[in-house]
């Protein structure tokens, strides 16, 4: 139980560090890489919730979140490189 609380608190610290970089980041690529990292940390959170509750639908949320984060990061990268979305 102590191990579970410590792990969840450390992942929450990761989330707050990413939020700090999203809010503070001096350029737009900083913010978008922090958003991508936030999505990946959330997938880890979903895996942890699956292990804690024993129900496997949290991992569906994790897979969908990873896909959405990937597509959003690619779209942001294309926008930052100054190209259209359909090249």
């Amino acid at each position: 139980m102590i191990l579970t609380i410590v792990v969840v608190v450390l992942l929450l610290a990761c989330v707050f560090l990413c939020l700090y970089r999203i809010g503070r980041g001096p350029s737009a690529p900083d913010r978008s890489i922090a958003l991508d990292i936030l999505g990946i940390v959330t997938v880890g959170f979903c895996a942890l919730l699956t292990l804690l509750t024993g129900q496997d639908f949290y991992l569906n949320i994790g897979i969908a979140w990873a896909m959405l984060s990937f597509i959003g990061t690619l779209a942001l990268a294309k926008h930052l490189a100054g190209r259209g979305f359909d090249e």
Partner: protein
Amino acid sequence: MILLQAIGYGLIVLGVIFDLFGCIGLVRLPDFHNRMHAAMKCVTLGTMSILIGAALASGSGAIMAKALLCALFIAITAPTAAHALSRAAYLSGVVPAHKEICDHYGADRRARGEERS
């Protein structure tokens, strides 16, 4: 069974520590490319380690299959996103914190006659 659970929880603790190191690097390092180097490597390794640890520690077939699928998906997509984003940052003109010592991508672009925008 107990051995698999011990290995799984060990992997989860290792992954959370790597996640924390990656996010500290995301906050502390001075430059965009330094931040992306630390964060992408550590966080991808950390989250894949958490997923594999959950797959080993759960002992259920459905959870194991989904967690391994998710780990495979992250292993494929995270380097792709990092590569696209670093190229976009270079093209959008992110200035490095220190003087650029080695810029092979810019040299290639100049050799092809493309301006750095």
